[in-house]
């Protein structure tokens, strides 16, 4: 229903990640208006209180801006969007490294694994 959520993370955080991902991929561009709280609640199948929290936290992160009576908009501060992209990279790298360490891989093995995977993908694209 709406969005499929992972079990081990609060829904509001998953929605922040989802919106931040869409902003980084330019699906939502600087200055774009986000759906209203209720619209986005219906779209994702989530309680409106949760969406309110999503928008509030994203505002604190300075990724979006709420204009009174107009709605919530993606920030036009380019520097913030660049650092958001960097933050997301960091977050995924950390999660990857943590999982790999738990499985007993060394950093060298991880890097080699990434390079090998990259080369395979390149070959496939040719």
């Amino acid at each position, binding site marked *: *229903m709406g969005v499929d959520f992972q*079990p*081990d993370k*609060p*829904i509001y955080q998953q929605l922040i990640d989802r919106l931040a991902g869409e902003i980084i991929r330019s699906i939502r561009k600087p200055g774009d208006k986000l759906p209203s709280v209720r619209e986005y609640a*219906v779209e994702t*199948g989530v*309680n*409106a*209180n949760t969406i309110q929290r999503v928008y509030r936290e994203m505002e604190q992160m300075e990724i979006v801006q709420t204009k009174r009576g107009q709605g919530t908009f993606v920030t036009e501060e380019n520097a913030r969007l660049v650092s958001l992209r960097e933050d997301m990279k960091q977050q995924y790298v950390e999660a990857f490294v943590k999982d790999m360490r738990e499985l007993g891989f060394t950093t060298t093995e991880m890097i080699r694994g990434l390079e090998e995977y990259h080369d395979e993908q390149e070959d496939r694209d040719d």
Partner: protein
Amino acid sequence: MIEAKHISKRFLLKRAVEGIDLELIPGKMYGIIGENGSGKSTLLKLLAGLLRPSTGSLKINGSPLTRKSATDIAYMTDRGRFYPYLTVKQLVDFYDSQFHDFKKEKAFRILEYLAIDPDEKLKYLSKGNLGRAKLAVTIARESPFILLDEPLSGLDPMVRESIVKGIIQFVDFERQSLIITTHEIRDIEPLLDEVFILHGGKIIDHQTVDDIRTRERLDVESWLKRKMQGNESMS
């Protein structure tokens, strides 16, 4: 606010619910979960003022909660029947005549959203459409508390989804509170702020959904299962 202090309900010798303490504030979505026979429906009827607690105190906004509190509480059950010869439109008129906070125009908007023909007779509606029609008249009230007893029970996935969406679309999350009993937890979880687990008539845990996911790293359904297992191994 609805405030229950140590309420219990007995039917003859059977204890249906026991020693319930809870506080429900407007603007929150609550789920009461637990297996069949755990006392969910009895608790909801107590909160609706349809049953009187055998012991304990139950208040709404500081006054005793009674049958008359129905003016502030909208209640829907999957059991109760409507007059089958009424049309959906006549059902709306009936609700309009019974409840001062009923918004007729809103009822028709909800029916339209849920694709229910107002001229259809209730007896010709499918189970899913009857469920939708009941939801429409229930949430067309502006009462501060809306109590739904198993709103998704026995309905197919499409209907369940439209009922959840209807609730999100039309309930005023800032002013109204929703209290839902359910065992279809997966569909309802994204709607909820807080969850009570009822087991053997007692509340054995109460958490916010965010806390369950953050601290326990579980969704509500898995959390319930783990709690129930823990409870069985103790007894």
